[in-house]
């Protein structure tokens, strides 16, 4: 094992922990420093989920994806900043201060993998691991001008990912270009017996720019109300380049999009209310006052340890699952989720991929969205993918006001290779 020196000039608060002398080995990623989002367990390296409640937590084991990255020779460079427990779209919800967008430090990097995206965009690391629950890899990739892949659910093990919303989230690769995203994906994909949802679908693909004959669906909802016309114009031009490269486009519609965002937030908050019950100052977190009663001590620890967004989501989930409201919210959200799956299946019978913007706007300014609901509405174009469990990638496709715009390419389940190819084709031949 060879030791590297890693002392980045982190002007963007991208890292929460830096490993100054990370050890590398031999393999596909030999000697490459890889940053890891702070909700992915790293043995012996503090892992906080950007939360005060986990300050000082040292995982006793590596997440499966981290173990694979290490065994491929990479050096773990450090842990990256994020929205607390992955809850957010801007990385402003970190207990340790927001990350700044390297393209414009007055703007957010996107979230919740904003630290990973900023670390790559600023050139501090070549690759990073992020997690995507409702767009948390693709959003910061789009806002920072890098590439991010949300793999098919089950293709990358979630063992060691500190759970927020199990049925939605996945670990995925982020890098400055499609080839590096593909390389990192080839290391982390595959079966893991520790994760019951893990699939035996390794990824051994080499990106190909040949997309002649590829049929691309263009959902009208991805260019509808709420999408900045300037962003839509850049993405339409990018899709035009894909046509020039031999693809054909087909207009289409996803009617279930109307319910996707509400269904997503009901489901993710419900799962969060259960998953985050373990953070009680007993099993994890700063020790509680044991002379108080259980509930009083528990509430004190969680009031002090969790930020407002985490507390809000735990309460929303508790409300959605409570007696009298379960049928109105959670059960309906599951029906909506199934309708979304069916809509995607119907479209993928006719087209190979779907394309649209990753985000409805460019990166917003720090503090610009102080109202939670308006922040949630930013996720409208990314959450359907998580509800359906399909793969999607964001690749830079131009700028608006000098800020990056992401082209989102969505594919059939387990056709991560195809979305990689379309992104690669655009990257290689997309620039006029």
């Amino acid at each position, binding site marked *: 094992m060879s030791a590297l020196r890693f002392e980045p000039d982190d002007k963007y608060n991208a890292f929460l922990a830096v490993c100054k002398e990370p050890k590398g080995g031999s393999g596909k990623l030999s000697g490459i420093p890889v940053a890891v989002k702070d909700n992915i367990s790293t043995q012996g390296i503090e892992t906080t989920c950007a939360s005060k409640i986990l300050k000082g937590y040292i995982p006793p084991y590596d997440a499966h994806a981290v173990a694979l990255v290490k065994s491929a020779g990479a050096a773990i460079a450090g842990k990256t900043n994020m929205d607390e427990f992955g809850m957010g779209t801007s990385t402003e919800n970190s207990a340790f201060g927001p990350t700044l967008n390297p393209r414009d430090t007055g703007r957010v990097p996107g979230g919740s993998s904003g630290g990973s995206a900023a670390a790559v965009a600023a050139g501090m690391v070549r690759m990073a691991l992020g997690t995507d629950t409702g767009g948390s890899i693709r959003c910061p990739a789009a806002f920072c001008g890098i590439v991010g892949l949300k793999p098919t659910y089950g293709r990358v093990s979630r063992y060691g990912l500190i759970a927020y919303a199990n049925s939605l989230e996945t670990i995925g690769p982020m890098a400055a270009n499609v080839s590096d995203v593909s390389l990192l994906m080839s290391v982390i994909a595959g079966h893991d017996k520790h994760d019951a949802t893990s699939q035996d679908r390794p990824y051994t693909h080499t990106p190909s720019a040949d997309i002649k004959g590829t049929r691309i669906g263009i959902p009208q909802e991805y260019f509808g109300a709420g999408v900045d016309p300037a962003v839509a114009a850049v993405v339409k031009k990018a899709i035009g380049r894909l046509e020039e490269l031999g693809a054909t486009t087909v207009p289409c519609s996803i009617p279930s999009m109307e319910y996707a965002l509400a269904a997503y937030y009901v489901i993710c908050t419900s799962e969060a209310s259960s998953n985050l019950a373990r953070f009680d100052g007993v099993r994890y977190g700063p020790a509680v006052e044991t002379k108080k009663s259980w509930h009083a001590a528990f509430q004190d620890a969680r*009031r002090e340890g969790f930020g407002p967004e985490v507390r809000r989501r735990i309460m929303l989930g508790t409300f959605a699952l409570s007696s009298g409201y379960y049928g109105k919210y959670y059960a309906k959200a599951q029906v909506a989720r199934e309708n979304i799956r069916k809509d995607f299946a119907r479209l993928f019978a006719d087209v190979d991929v779907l394309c649209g913007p990753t985000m409805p706007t460019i990166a917003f300014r720090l503090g610009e969205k102080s109202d939670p609901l308006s922040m949630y509405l930013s996720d409208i174009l990314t959450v359907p993918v998580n509800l359906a469990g399909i793969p999607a990638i964001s690749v830079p496709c131009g700028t608006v006001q000098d800020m990056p715009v992401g082209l989102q390419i969505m594919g059939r389940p387990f056709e991560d290779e195809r979305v990689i190819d379309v992104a690669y084709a655009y990257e290689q031949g997309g620039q006029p």
Partner: protein
Amino acid sequence: MVSEKDVEHIGELADIGIDAAELATFTGQFNAIVEYFDVLDKVRGDDTGARDLYNILREDKVEPSLPHDVALGNAGAQEDGFIKAPRVM
């Protein structure tokens, strides 16, 4: 419409701890979000897509696990090799 009393009750159920000073803000935000959730009333169908899913369980045999001291390493408080918890009664 969710009242401040409702939010206080939900905070109790969730063991999240709501201060009186934050109740009004939380309630206002809560109402806006829950009002948005009401779009789900229009969802048609009752098929939740239950497919042929089954639980994947490993064989019930003892496998190597973390040593006792490592497993307790992140516990808030310990006593005699156990996690120390607040009283329940």
